[in-house]
């Protein structure tokens, strides 16, 4: 591992950190605008992007083995089962 490489990794972390702060700021600023029915999906999407950034880079998911990636995706899939089937009830009452 060269020092050069290390510096690059460090710069990437800092860059992503700035991106995260930007997304947080955008999401907070977004509350000042009336986006109507789109407000909730937009805010959740921005938060989802932040989650993806943290998971893939800070938790090094991208560099992890395929097995670990499958495990991470599995958790999303099961959370989806929980939400979709529960809302199948609440949305059709």
């Amino acid at each position, binding site marked *: 591992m060269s020092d050069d490489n290390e510096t690059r990794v460090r710069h990437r972390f800092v860059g992503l950190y700035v991106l995260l702060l930007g997304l947080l700021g955008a999401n907070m600023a977004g509350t000042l605008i009336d986006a109507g029915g789109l407000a909730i999906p937009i805010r959740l999407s921005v938060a989802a992007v932040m989650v993806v950034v943290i998971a893939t880079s800070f938790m090094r998911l991208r560099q992890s083995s395929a097995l670990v990636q499958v495990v991470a995706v599995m958790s999303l899939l099961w959370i989806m089962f929980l939400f979709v*089937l529960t809302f*199948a009830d609440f949305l*059709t009452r």
Partner: protein
Amino acid sequence: MNYLNAGYGLKSWLLTLDHKRVAWLYFISITGFFFLGGAAATLVRLELITPAGDLLSSDAYNQMFSLHGIVMVWFFLIPSIPATMGNFLLPLMLGARDMAFPRLNLMSWYVFILGGAFTLTAVIAGGIDTGWTFYTPYSTMFSNGAVLAAATGVFIVGFSSILTGINFIVTTHKMRAPGLTWFRLPLFVWAQYATSLIMVLATPVLSITLVLLGVERAFGIGIFDPALGGDPILFEHLFWFYSHPAVYIMLLPAMGVVSEVIACFAHKRIFGYKVMAFSILAIALFGFLVWGHHMFVSGQSIYAGVAFSLLSFLVSVPSALKIFNWLATLYKGHIRFDAPMLFALSFIGLFLIGGLTGVFVATLALDIQMHDTYFVVAHFHYIMVGGMVSAYMAGLHFWWPKITGRLYPEMWARVSAIIVFAGFNLTFFPQFILGWAGMPRRYHAYAEEFQLLNVFSSAGAGMLAVGYLLPLLYLLWSLRYGARAGGNPWDARGLEWTVASPPPKETFATVPRVDSEAYAYDTPQ
């Protein structure tokens, strides 16, 4: 020098990191819980001999069936096969020296005991009368029992199964001996793996549900409180998201055990190995998508009910396939009827009836009648007791020589298998009819016309008690007086039969290399 005589002090057991000794710790503790739950069931059945509520008070009766449910589900059935035989055999079958995380393994037993202590505290400090389902708002606002202590106990014991699940998954992925590919694994390992997935994916939802229930009960932080606009049906969704897959935590390991036993005693490779392996995974996956079939008349949307019913029918297909494949395994085999095989065959019969009556309750229009009646009680006892406990007994007898190095008395074991089968059917078959006729469950006193079938049921329970006490006696007896078992008394295949009985402390001096399929019964060992 084997793992049993490698050390004698209490400390060598209580601080052991050897998976084989941890399995013993679990064996002893879940046996205790089994007979505690059984004692509660005995009182329930005694009460139900007569229609009037005369033996126990209503309060005592409600506590007994709640205790029976909580203890049997969380402190016996869920840990039963994985924590005992799974713990003992998984590394042996994988050719590994131990679990991936031996300390975690020991810790999960301590967590289990801690959870048990809380639950027993609940029993002493006022009892628990919510049933094992803890439905709100009864559990949060109306019950006078020690709900908080019991829920804490269940919450804690949940972590024990989460830790066991993580350990098993990592072990199966990372510790397989060279040459032991996924499709060379015994089906027992597949079953443990799928079970562990369910433990890891379902249990946390129960944990958070109990946390929310706990803060509501303890601090009045209403989450499900209808008076604040909270929704009791939401609790049911969260509860059953765990508790339906939990049925498969109990059932899948049983299917694994039965596959091993049938292959050995038919002396033949399991028919359709890959179908069997994939159907285990399919059951584990689909098991997560059907929880709403517990709520067909709960006030859930009827459209959601229709969707959950369809998914429930789909999950029964892989289970049906497994039964057919076990039958096909017998075809042209060399079948021996030793006690493990008798238990395994009774598993098939009872699981078949349990499964088919499950199709009845998955049928929406019939479930209107059967929901919360004795039909449901009979159905899930056929799966959990008839199925799961029979398989547990099958596995216990099958691997007893391996675990202890001693043979059990064969004749007594066959007698006990037959008594259990007969007693079980006498206990629970009448309950199907009772439920169809409309006797609700959890009734302390009941209408007079239900008495005859209840008398049958209670008589059967007596038989069942004898059938379960016998093994306790003769297995203990065999520990001292049983004949010495060789390394492989059943002429079985699999890595666990290649080591001495009981296995040495360091199971594998050199890591074995595997170059054949599982169940290679065609080739002499």
